[in-house]
């Protein structure tokens, strides 16, 4: 790898720890920085370094090596180890790259939505949240996962609540998110406790080994599994456990909404994959049963009902939020089917959806930034008032629907063919049906934006006012990326197939 040789060696060898430690420490410093611009620069630099490190790690993964980083030099199972393998590295890159884009976007957006005094702490909380997400993805220790889950969650509660200066309802939304998030984290830690009881270790690889020696374990492991699935299900907004999500997405600052939508639920989904497939094993009958009956039925219910709910929302952000819940259903369907192809498709959809939803929420944030609108009916004439932003929104929307030559098509097609090759034609039908529903809820917005004239104020048509460049860059970056993936998904497929390999073969520390 040519690019890899340009990397300093320490960035790769210590990359796993660096990814977590750097934003965590600098997040603490950023919080007390006196000037918001300074805080922004620090945030940008930190996230850029993380992205570079994650990219380097991904290259080593493509080079065929996995990495085990021992914290404090203690060997696993006793010490905490960080594992870098094909499953988590793409997610690491996704989180850090989205953090960079959000930071760029944040320069105008945070200035508009957060009180001046709170902006530096805002960036600090954001960095700590990034550190938490990266930590829970990188670590190979079950309890460490919980710690970082809490780190990221607490900082996200704060971030959501910061939307209060724009809309007071952010406070209740943050409160609900806090209550439910805590329930989720508690369930998770209870589950980990049961697992510790069963196996006597917290290291995931060790747990997996012991569990498979025990043939799935006794009742403690069973109950632990149930708790972990529900805890993580709450975090990733699995269908009936999604109730915290629409409020949190709708009232948080736009910056936070994008970041939450494209990373937080994805990291939780990664954890669900990690636990069900590498710590536990689908060949244990209870895991297989839960996948087939609970996960898939919830996935399908979520896809249908949340899509329907999305159609009836009046607020564009709530529409997109419900659409996110539906899209989580697609990913869970991929998980539930459990073949290599379906896992790969679900994983690919995880990444693609992060990109698509990122672009969409960026655009919606820009609409608010310029005209203060969030309701769908106020979108009229936006194609003329903000053509570029609306263009990015359109590409994102088409991709969400799954129009050919967009990222959404690739993953939906892969998922449908995986379901079909498993003989699950009804699942193909559900995918088709929800795509039609997606056409309705996205099409409704597009129709208003393109076919209605801009509103008039005092007899004059509202002036054209494009979003600032700092908002357009990340937005279009994601929109173009989703088309590029639609045209050539080679690297994406490779990453997703690698992840599916890890899940099925259990490669890793």
């Amino acid at each position, binding site marked *: 790898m040519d690019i890899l040789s340009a990397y300093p060696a320490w960035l790769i060898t210590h990359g796993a720890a660096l990814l977590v430690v750097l934003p965590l420490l600098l997040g603490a410093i950023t919080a007390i920085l006196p000037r918001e611009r300074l805080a922004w620069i620090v945030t940008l630099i930190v996230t850029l370094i993380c992205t570079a490190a994650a990219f380097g790690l991904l290259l080593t993964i493509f080079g065929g090596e996995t990495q085990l980083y021992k914290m404090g030099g203690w060997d696993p199972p006793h010490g905490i180890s960080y594992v870098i393998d094909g499953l988590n590295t793409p997610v690491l890159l996704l989180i850090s790259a989205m953090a960079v884009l959000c930071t760029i976007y944040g320069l105008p957006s945070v200035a508009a939505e957060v009180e001046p005094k709170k902006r530096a702490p805002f960036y600090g909380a954001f960095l700590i949240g990034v550190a938490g997400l990266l930590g829970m993805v990188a670590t190979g220790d079950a309890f460490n996962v919980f710690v970082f889950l809490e780190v990221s969650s607490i900082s996200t509660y704060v971030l959501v609540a910061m939307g209060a200066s724009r809309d007071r309802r952010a406070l*209740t939304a943050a*409160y*609900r998110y806090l*209550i*439910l998030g805590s*329930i*989720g984290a508690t*369930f998770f830690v209870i589950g980990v406790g049961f697992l510790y009881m069963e196996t006597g270790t917290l290291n995931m690889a060790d747990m997996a080994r012991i569990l498979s020696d025990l043939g799935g374990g006794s009742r403690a492991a*069973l*109950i632990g*599994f*149930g*708790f972990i*699935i*529900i805890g993580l*299900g*709450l975090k990733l907004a699995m269908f*009936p*456990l999604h*109730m*915290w999500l629409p409020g949190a997405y709708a009232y948080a600052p736009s910056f936070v909404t994008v970041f939450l939508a494209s990373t937080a639920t994805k990291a939780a989904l990664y954890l669900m994959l990690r636990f069900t497939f590498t710590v536990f094993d689908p060949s244990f*009958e*209870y895991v*297989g*049963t*839960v996948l087939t*009956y*609970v996960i898939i039925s919830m996935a399908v219910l979520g896809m249908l009902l949340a899509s329907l709910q999305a159609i009836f929302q009046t607020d564009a952000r709530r529409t997109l939020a419900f659409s996110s819940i539906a899209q989580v259903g697609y990913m869970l369907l991929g998980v539930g089917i459990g073949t290599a192809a379906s896992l790969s498709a679900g994983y690919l959809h995880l990444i693609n959806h992060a990109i698509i939803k990122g672009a969409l929420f960026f655009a919606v944030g820009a609409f608010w930034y310029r005209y203060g609108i969030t309701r769908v009916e106020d979108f009229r004439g936006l194609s003329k008032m903000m053509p570029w932003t609306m263009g990015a929104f359109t590409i994102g929307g088409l991709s969400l629907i799954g*129009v*050919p030559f967009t990222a959404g098509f*690739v993953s939906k*097609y*892969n998922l*449908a*063919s995986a379901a*079909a*090759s498993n003989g699950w*034609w009804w699942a*193909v*039908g559900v995918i*088709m049906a929800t*795509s*039609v529903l997606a*056409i309705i809820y996205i099409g409704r917005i597009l129709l208003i934006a393109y*076919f209605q004239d801009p509103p008039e104020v005092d007899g004059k048509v509202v002036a054209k006012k494009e979003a600032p460049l700092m908002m357009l860059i990340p937005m279009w970056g994601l929109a173009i990326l989703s088309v590029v993936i639609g*045209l*050539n*998904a080679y690297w994406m*497929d490779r990453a997703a197939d690698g992840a599916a390999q890890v899940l099925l073969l259990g490669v890793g520390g």
Partner: protein
Amino acid sequence: MIDMILSNPGFIIILAGVVCALLPVSQIRKAILLIAPIFAGYMIYTATKDMEAARFAVSVGGQELTLMRMDRLAMIWGYVFCLAGVLNAIYGFHEKCKITDSSALIYMGAAVSGVFAGDFLTLFIFWEMAAISSVMLVWKGGEKSFPAGIRYLAIHVLSGVLLLAGAVMYGRANGGDFTFGYVGLENPGGCLLLIAMGIKCGFPFLHNWIQDAYPKASITGTVILSAFTTKLALYALARAFPGTDLLIYIGAIMTCFPVFFAVIENDLRRVLSYSLNNQLGFMVCGIGLGSELAMNGVAAHLAADVIFKGLLFMSMGAVMFRTGTAKASELGGLFRSMPYTTIFCLIGAGSIAAFPLLSAFVTKSMIITAALYEHEWIVLAMLLFASAGVMEHSGIKVPYFTFFSHDSGKRVKEAPVNMLVAMGLASILCIFFAWPWGGYQFLYSLLPNPEVHYSPYTGNHVVTQMQLLFAAMFAFALLKRIGVYPDEKRAEILDFDWTYRRLGKNIAIWIDAMWTRLSANVGRLRKRFIDSASDKIYHMFSPAGALSSAAPSGLPAVLTGSMLVLTLFVIYLSRL
């Protein structure tokens, strides 16, 4: 990338459409609108020289997509579409509308690309693209066209989804081979494909979008729409289901039932839409027959139909452009002010009615003869009945009520020059395609099976056809004279779309009302239950005192708990 664009003539047209969307100058757009189909036609011509070399495939996401596949069946469709594109460009020259121009090009390009698509996935892409781009043309028809456009789009997206589902099923059953070729009804995917194509082709009970959307589109929009969508579907049928017996009967029914609607319909553009459906029936029937002669007849009749149906729509468009209406009850006597349009319309009407020396005479007869050779007597009778019906609604009714009949007193200017040129060209083509000395031979040389010999100008053919037409004219004159020929009355004629525009809507409204009532009752019950159970619990769960309005955190927490119980229960069951 560039060789990909140059591989398929349709891509050039689509590209031209995208360019048009950005061009502010109307004249340049019109030039592009004219040149793009001519250039595409030239590309088809060069590609026919070496049909194998023209093939072009790319691999997308591990799936091979054949973007270009040339053979004689595709060739004639490609030529016809390009020809229609040129005529439409001339016809719409007076109109300065960016959306119409670019969507017309993209729509035409999608249709051409679809014709040259070599596999079902590629076909699906252009199938949907044609639907989405053409709905813009419907929407350009004014306020009233918007709901019709939505219905049009919904039906076409449904057709596309069915096509994709059918293609995937077919491809799976076929070992991952998505080649767009003969499918047949042996596997379930084939049935889905047939329904998808049937929707777009206007099979009985699936046909309503044609009569719903086409008359509501803009003047140029209707002309453009009439040329491509249904013809693309017909191509797909000819490719995938030639010789499928079911299609013979579907086609025969399709020729007959629109006749009855056309005769009572007042809106002449809608009459022509029914007539379009009826002509498609002949071709579907031909595809069902599937013999070499029948397939030739289908291709030839397609070429003739695109021209004469376009001509008829153009003349009605010109009338509407000048008078503002296309309702038979409002028109009449217009030959006094629009003589050229009258002549062109009569040529179109004669062509569709299959007078000798006009195009349908040399094309429709191939299909009828094929039915005769196959000894499908009932079908033959239905086709002949439909031929008499065509004479009524397109051959007599449309020109009679517009240009003759009682004088409406409307005195308008003759159609604009560009419209006259387009109609004139189409009229010349109508005559040329049936010209006994070199005309029809040229058309026949382009057909898929050139080795099949058929000569239309035999004594018995001319004589029997003239008998039929004269008898129809005699009946018309007789009925008119004894006063039983019905006058046109303004009305909305119910068709199968009643089921979803009225019945479906009412059912939805009823369900909605019932749902409101039900939820009110349930809400009352729930409230009473909670009240009687315990006010304390009620207040505990809802500090604000409103459980329904702002659902408190308690409900999700309870849900979480129940999910856990459910999961544990499933786990417990799995151990039994």
